[in-house]
């Protein structure tokens, strides 16, 4: 007989479980997640593994790795423990990655959402501003900002956020432009929902998946930008950051390469983990794109 269209299909498992099933289909993404967890654990346990200031003198300068168990990865030219530096550096890198990304995504979402939703002159004005930012190379703008504001870690983080918001803004704008014409937006308007509610409660949740994916890429980029700054000697000298360590190891690169190599490996693996996680998120959040 005919089935009545009021018969319900069996309930689906909760979203989180579905999400995890899709995510774990991608092996590389699982590797990325494992690496990320390791970096996270390093950041959290830095104080337990090596209590005290990581910038203090821990042994004879330029002790090679695996010779002294107090400093398993050796020391740099000032006698600072590289092992401790890597652990404490994870904190700085993650902190910069998260905060700078939040700043960039925050500005980007706001500008992109307004431009994409309202269109017209609002869009024109906001997009010209965005383009003005885009014409200046990221890193040059970052150097300028740091030169003006100074090398404090807070300012560096903010500056990295400020130079990276243009790409998310354009992405959010594109998402909003396609979503604002959808019927569910009309339906909300028809219920008398205000513009602000439509933007943030109706459209934004639907535009989130690509933003989340891009955020993971942005974290990797922010960490790289900070390292590049520190390499040029513009990092905050009061914190053990991986970039700082490479920057200082540069001068002894020929005699004691390990000073630069270990933090270098840390950066590579962290950035790799974010990229892989981003790819996994993309597969899990936009399942229809693949296959």
């Amino acid at each position, binding site marked *: 007989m*005919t089935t009545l*269209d*009021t018969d319900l299909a069996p309930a689906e498992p909760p979203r989180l479980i579905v999400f995890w099933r899709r995510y774990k289909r991608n092996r590389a993404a699982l590797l990325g997640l494992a690496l990320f967890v390791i970096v996270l654990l390093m950041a959290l346990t830095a104080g337990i593994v090596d209590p005290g200031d990581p910038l203090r003198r821990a042994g004879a300068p330029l002790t090679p790795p695996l010779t002294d168990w107090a400093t398993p990865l050796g020391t740099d030219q000032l006698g600072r423990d590289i092992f401790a530096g890597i652990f404490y550096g994870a904190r700085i890198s993650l902190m910069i990655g998260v905060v700078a990304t939040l700043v960039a995504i925050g500005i980007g979402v706001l500008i992109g959402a307004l431009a994409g939703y309202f269109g017209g002159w609002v869009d024109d004005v906001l997009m010209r501003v965005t383009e003005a930012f885009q014409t200046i190379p990221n890193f040059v703008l970052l150097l300028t900002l740091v030169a003006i504001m100074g090398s404090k870690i807070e300012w560096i983080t903010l500056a990295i956020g400020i130079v990276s918001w243009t790409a998310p803004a354009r992405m959010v704008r594109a998402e909003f432009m396609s979503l604002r014409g959808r*019927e569910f937006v*009309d339906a909300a308007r*028809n219920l*008398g929902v*205000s513009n602000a509610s439509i933007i943030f409660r109706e459209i934004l949740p639907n535009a989130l998946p690509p933003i989340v994916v891009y955020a993971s890429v942005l974290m990797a980029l922010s960490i790289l930008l900070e390292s590049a700054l520190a390499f040029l000697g513009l990092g905050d000298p009061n914190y053990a950051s991986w970039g700082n360590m490479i920057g200082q190891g540069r001068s002894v690169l020929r005699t004691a390469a390990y000073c630069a190599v270990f933090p270098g490996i840390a950066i590579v693996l962290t950035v790799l983990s974010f990229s892989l996680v981003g790819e996994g998120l993309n597969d899990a959040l936009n399942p229809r794109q693949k296959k």
Partner: protein
Amino acid sequence: MTDTPPVLQISGLKIALPKGADRPYALEGLDLEINPGEIVCLVGESGSGKSLSAGAIMRLLPEPHVHVAEGSIKFRGEEIVAKSEAEMRQIRGRDIAMIFQEPMTALNPQKTVGWQLDEVLRLHTKMSRKERRARAIEMLERVHLPDPPSAYNAYPHQISGGQRQRVMIAMALSLSPKLIIADEPTTALDVTTQLQILKLIRELQEQEGAGVLFITHDFGVVAEIADKVAVLRKGILVEQGPASEVLNNPQHAYTRALIGAVPALTPPPLKVPSTAPVVLKGTGLKKTFAARGGMLSGKRKAVTAVKDLTFELRQGETLGVVGESGSGKTTVSRIVTRLLECDAGSVEMDGKDLLALSPREMREMRKHIQMVFQDPMASLNPRKRVVDLIAQGPIVHGADPAKARADARRLLELVELSPASASRFPHEFSGGQRQRIGIARALALEPKVIVADEPVSALDVSVQAQVLKLLAELRDRLNLSLLFVTHDLRVAAQLCDRIIVMQKGEIVESGPTAEVFANPQHEYTQKLLSSIPGRDWTPPVIRTDAA
């Protein structure tokens, strides 16, 4: 019947679906035979496996996920399932041709119509360039395109939808195939164009003596064109036989239910007295979509969607707005709800002109005029739970959230959905269920007027009948006034007390539905009515025990 062998002989065809699909086989044991000069209609609702069977014949299944598991497909006595890909390429296009549903996407937008016709001939024949061009133009003439030489040089976007479908047919027939597979070829077209295309397919098929496998969901079309009918349900062939037999004396319960769900073309008697108070009144509405185009893209002409439209909707009445695509009927629904700003005119409700209100005042008024949208998937925010979707309106208008959610659960019951489904997301429902949710959302604000824009056109017939029944019941019970926009005259006949027929933004005729249907005055209305597929076939009245 005759001594000529059948063009196509399918026996015991089984198509396997990938693991995790809703059923293991898309088709289970399909038997079908098509003789030369015969049109066989394969009918079924969405998900019945009718399009996959076409894919199997053309060997165009998305293998290896979906593949033929068992059975044989014999084309003129030769087994298709065993053929190599190279052999299939020879057969496709030359011996078996296909006409697709959406002619815009099936044609390459970068190439002219002539180039695409030429390509078919170039690949399969040894004709010279001149001969090919002559043949192509001859084919365009045979499908009755006006001015074939200019159509030969046109790009697909420069001709209309019906003309594009004609081009597709010309392409399909240019090599005189023995079998034509038409997969919902008229679904995307307006009724008047649909009738012309159906006639054309019939005419050419008789000339060529080809067999046609015509896939459709519309019993009206079946009545119009079929010699034989095969009805599919969830991959299982439930009934097969001569068209007149299946249409007028269906045996299987499912076929009976499907045919019983086809709206009859007899409008209900007028029941709302003309003395009922007017709840919504539109006067002199006008909307022009401005010319766009920049420095480089060239100016496009301004399009007048609605010009000088006036209507009245009375309490408890259903007013149908009927017309083909481009007639401006959807624009009307959007102007009235002010989703689209109007150029001139007024929409009066409670003595207030909705179009003159400030945005803040309008937000307040919206609770009196609600809308049911065409696409129930697109109009429900995919990231919200059903209960929140329904309760959203009342909450926005100041109701207590807890009470609004409780009311939403009650509304779910009203639209015959289980209140247990309240905490689910829209994608967990079927199309008809989603439309019920859309209706519940519109009702949540207890509006005076509901504007419904093609609310059932995205649904299967049997579901469509159920949703229409629900709408009619709710209207009578809650004394709603309905502005019902539709392109489907059968649907209009079933639900509307009065109708407005629109053409190119203007009302050409209006009046009580029964009168307009029985005695259309305007030429366009007459044409529309005479184009309804299967208008001469009255679905037999079938008592269904279900539903």
